[in-house]
């Protein structure tokens, strides 16, 4: 009996230690000829279909970059718009290969649900939108103000915690309906509106009528790191997605852009650049990719900084500052381990 059990364990461990070269998810994507990418049903700057039905946004660009790396064609993506109720089930059931959809990274989601986060794409946080005439520059100056909130899951709690921690008082006005809360705020009923900063930026740009009259305060009173999620159980695919983010960051750090990538590949004698673009070493091999994968991602969507600027940066509709999402040399936390 005991020997039989040992034999079973031995066979099982022998089978599981067979190297799955690029991972079963990547194999399935290649066989299908398409990356199945789960996005939102429409969040400007992150994933939203434009007037021509073309998907645009940071989360969308990341899926295009992955398709360029794995399938050598950034257009080979099948988009699945998902609500917040559907998103995890779609990934758990295998309907999508990756969930690239403004989803906050938390312990409970990362560990308890058969999912794993591959990293940060955008670090958000709850912020405040105020009228410029209020002359408020930071959230603590809002002591005594009336604050409009749309009741959700954590928004009103974060607000109460912030007030308590800073020993200030707010008069909280809670609304259930987004239209009602926007009406109240833009009528001047309350002096500030609190929600996730990226949502505030989108509201300021699209719903205020006069964006120049409003300002999103720099304070972030909660942590909302957003990033792509994959299924647990395929470490190779997880590693590929994670290092795709790092490669986009590394490219920005080394100054390689969509425009100059060809010239840089030919001329640069920086060893880190040569390695990244597959000129000297092959950094694709451990991931089950070829040596030009980073080059193709950059040709498709540009480096991380370019993705940020194009979709949510100061020149875009959302006009978000780079802030904490900058590289460490610019005061942010977007750090990439060495690609070697």
């Amino acid at each position, binding site marked *: 009996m005991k020997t039989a059990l040992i034999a079973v364990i031995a066979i099982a461990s022998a089978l599981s230690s067979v190297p799955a070269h690029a991972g079963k998810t990547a194999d399935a994507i290649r066989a299908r000829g398409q990356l199945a990418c789960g996005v939102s049903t429409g969040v400007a700057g992150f994933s939203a279909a434009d007037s021509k039905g073309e998907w645009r946004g940071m989360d969308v660009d990341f899926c295009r970059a992955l398709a360029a790396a794995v399938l050598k064609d950034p257009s080979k993506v099948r988009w699945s718009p998902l609500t917040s109720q559907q998103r995890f089930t779609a990934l758990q059931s295998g309907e999508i290969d990756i969930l690239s959809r403004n989803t906050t990274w938390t312990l409970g989601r990362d560990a308890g649900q058969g999912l794993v986060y591959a990293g940060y794409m955008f670090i958000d946080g709850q912020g405040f939108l105020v009228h410029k005439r209020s002359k408020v520059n930071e959230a603590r100056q809002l002591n*005594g103000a009336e604050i409009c909130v749309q*009741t959700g899951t954590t928004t*009103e709690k974060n607000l109460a915690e912030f007030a308590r921690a800073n020993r200030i008082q707010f008069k909280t006005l*809670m609304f*259930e309906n987004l239209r009602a809360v926007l009406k109240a705020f833009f009528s001047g*009923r309350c002096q500030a509106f609190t929600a996730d900063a990226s949502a505030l930026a989108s509201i300021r740009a699209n719903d205020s009528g006069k964006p120049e009259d409003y300002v999103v305060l720099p304070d972030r009173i909660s942590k909302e790191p957003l990033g792509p999620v994959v299924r647990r159980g395929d470490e190779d695919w997880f590693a590929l997605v994670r290092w795709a983010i790092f490669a986009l960051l590394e490219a920005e750090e080394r100054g390689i852009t969509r425009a100059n990538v060809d010239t840089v590949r030919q001329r640069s004698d920086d060893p880190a650049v040569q390695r990244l673009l597959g000129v000297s070493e092959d950094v694709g091999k451990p991931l089950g990719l070829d040596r030009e994968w980073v080059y193709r991602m950059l040709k498709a969507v540009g480096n991380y900084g370019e993705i940020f600027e194009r979709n949510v940066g100061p020149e875009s509709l959302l006009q978000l500052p780079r802030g904490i999402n900058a590289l460490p040399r610019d005061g942010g936390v977007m750090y990439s381990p060495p690609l070697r």
Partner: protein
Amino acid sequence: MKVRAYALQAAIVAAVLLALYGLATLVAAKMRGLGVEPGFGFLWQRAGFDIGDTLIAFDAADTYGRAFLVGLLNTVSVAAVAIVASLGLGGALGLGQLARNRLLARLCEAYVELFRNVPLLLQVLIVYVLLIGRLPLPQEAWSLGPDVWLSKSGLALPWPTFTDVGLMLERPVLGRFTFSGGAMLTPEFLSVAAALTLFTAAYIAEVVRGSVQAVSRRQTEAAQALGLNDAQTLRFVVVPQALRSMIPPLANQLLNLIKNSSLAVAVGYPDLVAVADTTLNQSGHAVECIAIIMAVYLTLSLITAALMGGWHGRLLRQQGGYP
């Protein structure tokens, strides 16, 4: 025969109770599966959110139970104000419809038709949007008398408070953003109270008109023959008789008003339903929160019905029953 009927009824009651028990067990099991312990114990947990408009002190460190109490007091206060105001307005409109002055009567009729045929939710929203849209910012508030200010933040009033030197009138003071001190009737409260009043008054007007018309014409003629003038006829002859048939339908209108106050949720007035919605979102105790809402409205309605019924009974006894 009778035994069979009782047995059947007992069986139906037992089946209903069993079904309820089964449902409760199922819900409890499902909630445990989601990691939520069913029961009302959560009422003693820390709420963690603030409520803007409160009659009693409340902050995020207080319990869900106290949040419900805040919501209940808000529901009761907005309903009480609207009941008093709509009885006054509705009574006047009802009598106005019967006025000999044609213009006045038509105006009152027009009012009734307009306000009872527009959905209440729309009326609440219209009043709210008008208030927050048309009123000035707190910095440019309209002065309606000494220390009375009307602005987008609401109607700020002086309010008596206990201090070291005894009862003092606390004045509202404009801070950097809005008024503090004194009492503040917020636009949310005002719009719910006003819309409930305007809407219910139209129905009450119809009840009053119908009851007055139900009093025999001959009563009026007899009163006039005795030399009573119009006002005296109304006060001593018509209204006391009309009241008897008026009270039961009036009680219905008041019950509707109390339940309609839950539309406050549309404009962010923290009534019982709004607080319960936030609580169930935060705590996951949806079934318990809905049960509390049901129990509270049931209790408020039964109390109102009992008060009105008592008044009606007393009136009938005083007047010696129906003629």
